[in-house]
């Protein structure tokens, strides 16, 4: 009976969504969207302040927001304050996991298998490669797909590999806590410096350079690397808490 009611409810909700999409002048059909009619036009042309500059890869100087990746321009520049809130949410959830699962009398969860020599050595070698890939993706976030969020998660994944390959391994959790606090504090300090120099919180106060160079876009690569470090250390803390159990 309950299943039938749930089924009817779900069908009604889905039907309402599809009906609302079909007969709506404000909401375009799938495949017919035109970003030039919406706010995104200003983001693509980089003229939120009505600068009316041409954006050309490798040539345009001194744009108001200069990462070649438009998604990065939105995440780390136009809506940077929003991103600060998002990584705070992630911090609070990692704090909640630590509160529920962490503690003083905890030991490493035994995985009930002993890794052999090849697995240990191979995972040590792979650890460096995955870590470097994560850092590369975080540093090049303003030029290529990726950025701080996947880069930080890759850093955490490389630590996860070490956890799986060694039965007794535990990271220095205090070090990661320090790294996380440092990254979060630097983010806020950069925002405050922008407030004093430019008049807005998280104002881009460094020269933006040429679109497409590695050293361009002002504070955006710095902020994205800080986001990567913060996300990586938070997720490493979550993994460490999940791989502990009560000491008997």
């Amino acid at each position: 009976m309950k299943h039938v009611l749930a089924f009817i409810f779900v069908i009604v909700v889905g039907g309402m969504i599809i009906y609302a999409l079909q007969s709506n002048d404000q909401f375009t059909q799938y495949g017919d969207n035109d970003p030039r009619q919406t706010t995104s036009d200003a983001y693509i042309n980089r003229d939120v302040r009505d600068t009316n500059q041409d954006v050309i890869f490798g040539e345009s100087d001194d744009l108001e927001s200069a990462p070649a990746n438009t998604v990065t321009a939105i995440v780390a520049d136009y809506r940077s304050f929003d991103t600060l809130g998002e990584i705070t949410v992630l911090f609070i959830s990692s704090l909640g996991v630590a509160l529920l699962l962490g503690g003083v009398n905890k030991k490493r969860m035994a995985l009930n298998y002993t890794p052999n020599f090849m697995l240990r050595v191979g995972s040590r070698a792979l650890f460096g490669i995955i870590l470097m890939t994560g850092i590369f993706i975080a540093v090049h976030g303003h030029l290529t797909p990726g950025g701080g969020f996947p880069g930080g998660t890759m850093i955490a994944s490389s630590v996860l590999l070490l956890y799986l390959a060694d039965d007794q391994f535990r990271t220095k959790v205090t070090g990661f806590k320090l790294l996380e606090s440092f990254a979060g504090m630097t983010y806020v300090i950069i925002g405050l410096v922008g407030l004093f120099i430019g008049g807005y919180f998280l104002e881009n106060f460094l020269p933006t350079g040429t679109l497409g160079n590695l050293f361009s876009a002002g504070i955006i690569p710095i902020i994205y690397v800080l986001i990567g470090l913060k996300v990586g250390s938070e997720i490493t803390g979550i993994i460490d808490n999940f791989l502990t159990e009560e000491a008997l």
Partner: protein
Amino acid sequence: MLQYAAIILFMIGLYGLLTQRHVIKIIISLNILEMGLNIFIVSVGYFEGGLAPIFTSTNNTNALAFVDPLPQALVLTAIVIGVGTTALGLALARKIYAEYGTLNLDEMGEE
């Protein structure tokens, strides 16, 4: 086509959330619902023949037809928040198991 798939994925997740009685299955339903919503939000900004919103040496001016970058930026952060909520839910599930000895919602509080 992918938009309708996203809506159906959302419906499947909602149905699982309403009918499943196992805590882990409920978290899995929540994940499926979230993936459906993410695909739906990204599909809102898509149009036929659009380019990925990244300037490269071949797609090099702003006069080209790029897809809408704003939904992608919203979804990028939403995915990372999803990991946080999933981890918190799984930690709560472990605490529930330590407290009640079961993960089935119907068997809780009977002993």
